[in-house]
């Protein structure tokens, strides 16, 4: 009974905690005439950085970056 119980408990814990959300996202910003400018995929720390600081283009303009399919 103890083995059955422990096996069952372990299965329950694994099934509940087994899945993780995807850590990478495609990012873009909205161009001046409304077009979407794709920036590619960002993961982990670089994803946090680009969302927090935005993207600065070659002309020095900083854009708010979106990393999801809104």
């Amino acid at each position, binding site marked *: 009974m103890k083995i059955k119980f422990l096996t069952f408990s372990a299965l329950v814990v694994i*099934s509940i905690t087994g899945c993780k959300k995807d850590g990478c996202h495609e990012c873009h910003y909205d161009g001046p005439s409304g077009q979407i400018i794709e920036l590619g995929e960002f993961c982990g720390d670089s994803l946090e950085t680009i969302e927090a600081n935005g993207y600065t283009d070659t002309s020095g303009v900083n854009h708010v970056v979106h990393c999801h399919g809104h």
Partner: protein
Amino acid sequence: MLRKLLLLLSLFLCVSLQAQVIIEVKDSSESTPLKNVQIFVVELDQILYTNSNGKALFSPGKISEYQLRISASGYEGQIITYKEGNLIKIKLLQSHIDLHEVTLSGTTSQRQDQNPFHIESRKISELSLHAPMNMGEILAKIPGVYQSSLGNGISKPVIRGMQGMRIVSLVNGLRIEGQQWGGDHGMGMAELGIGSVEVIKGPSSLLYGADALGGVIYYNDAPFASAKSYDIQLQSLFNSNTMGTVNRAILKTSGQKWRLMVAGSYANHADFKLPNQLFAKNSRFDESVLKAAFSFNAKRSVHHFRYTYNRTITGIPGHTHDSIVDFSSFQVPDQKRKYELPAQFFSNHYFSNENKWYFKNNELIALFGLTSNQLIEYDEKVTIPSLSMTLNNLLYTIKWSKKWGKHLKSVSGIQGMAQTNRNATNASDTLIPNSNTIDNGVFSTWIFEQTKWNFQGGVRYDLRSLNSLHSFNDNSSLARIYDGLNISIGSIYKSPNLLVKQAVSTGFRAPHLTELLSNGFHHGALRFEIGDINLKPERASQFDVTLEYSKEHLVIIFNPFVNYIQNYIYLQPIDSMVEGIKVFEYRQQNQVLFYGTDIGFHYHPHFAHKLHWESSFSYVNAYSGSDSSISLIPQPRLSNTLRLDLNIGKMVKFKDLALTHVFCLPQNNVAYNESQSSAYNLVDFSGSFEYSKKSRISLNVGVKNLLNQQYIDHLSRLKNIAMYAPSRTFFISLQWQLNNVNN
């Protein structure tokens, strides 16, 4: 030496045998033994079942008297008190309808026909005939109870037109908090392991203190396995509309003096399908629940430890930051499952420790609990939450019950909580400031019971201290003290066929920080909200009458009420927009009268013995003296369920068929700027089959919204984006159960 050992052994056996009491249960008219009768020994927290001879063995301990609750299908339940003797003879009266379950949410555990206060008690299995999506949908099957939903993932109970902060929810006596002031914040309560639910409609501050102004939802765990046995349940459910699955597993095992339950469930649903064949964008959700409970009894006491973890990730349909909203953009041709923004992540931890000590004519209950609710909302960015709050709550209840002779009993105690709310520093928005709330209350209730009349009355004083820890929205930090003196008085008259209950109860609710200090966007609700720092506490007084007429095959219930509320807080839309979003102000109405009724019957015709017909009609309305203040009053609702208990076959049984028709009348009684709602019909149908040998396999199949009705309920949070409720849905549920196997 061997003789001495044998002598000792026989003495030990004699003592053991003497300590056992035989419980014999028979049918009152035919005197035949009844098997599988459930006997719950309250003081030992132990469940026993009678064998094929109608007998069960019970081993009393040191306590002077025990309460035995007897229940069997097709018979009227009984509560008996055991004091001494080796044999308990019980005769059960045949009854095809027993509405008088024992309730635990009242002052003390009582059968409903002994409690002057009307409490609806329902088994979750009775409310789940047609595979409900969430707990809100389950509760909305109860007369006078509705749901305010934001798609399938977020659903909250509404009792007699009141919701949110005016409703208090408890699990096994533990109050649960989940930022319920926000209409788009989920409830954090799943069906897993819950056996029954009780609903107190109207103010209940005597029992549960501040906030219990609109009503109380009280969830009870399903019982543990019977003594020295184990019970395994596995269940899978498929829902065609959301292409969703729910998987549950429950294991229970019990010894003579201890009991254990471990359970887990995982539900995953994609966007729901609309009657126009499109899908409600971002209405997907998944939910994981883990639950464990342990209980043991000592010589004169019972101790429970319970823990639940609930995590939900849910999309927020209709959520937008755009100033110009195109409703059609929320209905899309593709059904998606993977989470995308905006989304809410809820996680809840509920821990409780309940201890009951039994002395001669005295009972002491001490419950301590800790709940933690984390709500994180991602709107625009995947790594930076727009909102992130953690609400921790430390709770206690200490209750002392004393019997003062044969007819009089008192229950007195103290109850309180210490609550902290903290915003994470990485969140971009803050809806309410960091705050501390401390509640303390003291109460005393007296119960006088006679054969025909019961009286109950009590008084309670509560003190709430509310402190915001920093300045917020141009207001400096806030420190407020609110207090409330509340009473409840009720009586019940019983005759063989008639039950008359009348009760007066009061309640109070202190204003919430969001009502006092808001000044900004609440995107989930599509509102710009402005609070008022001078709001006063709401105070309610309700008069509730229940008339119940019952015969062997028929029960009719009539339950009208009036609820008079002073300082009613509401959101008033004003003629202003901020960045394209409508502005609402929190205001206070001096007096509001909520009134209405629930009428119902349960008919089990003698000529068609397999048929049960349950019908209910719920109506609620509000009068404020002006025409603009009270919104979200539920549509009048007529519900009929026909259930055919077939039980055809032996090893494979065709168990039952159930057909439910719900007719919601139009709601034309609306507040300023609130739109009216049309009438709609819903038809649900299901059937169940069972295979039983050593284990039991149950199959339940059916269809919801059979007529594919295109409708929007008046309380739907998606009404403001003109999004219909889910279309026709087929479901199939398979359950495997192995139980009552001795260790």
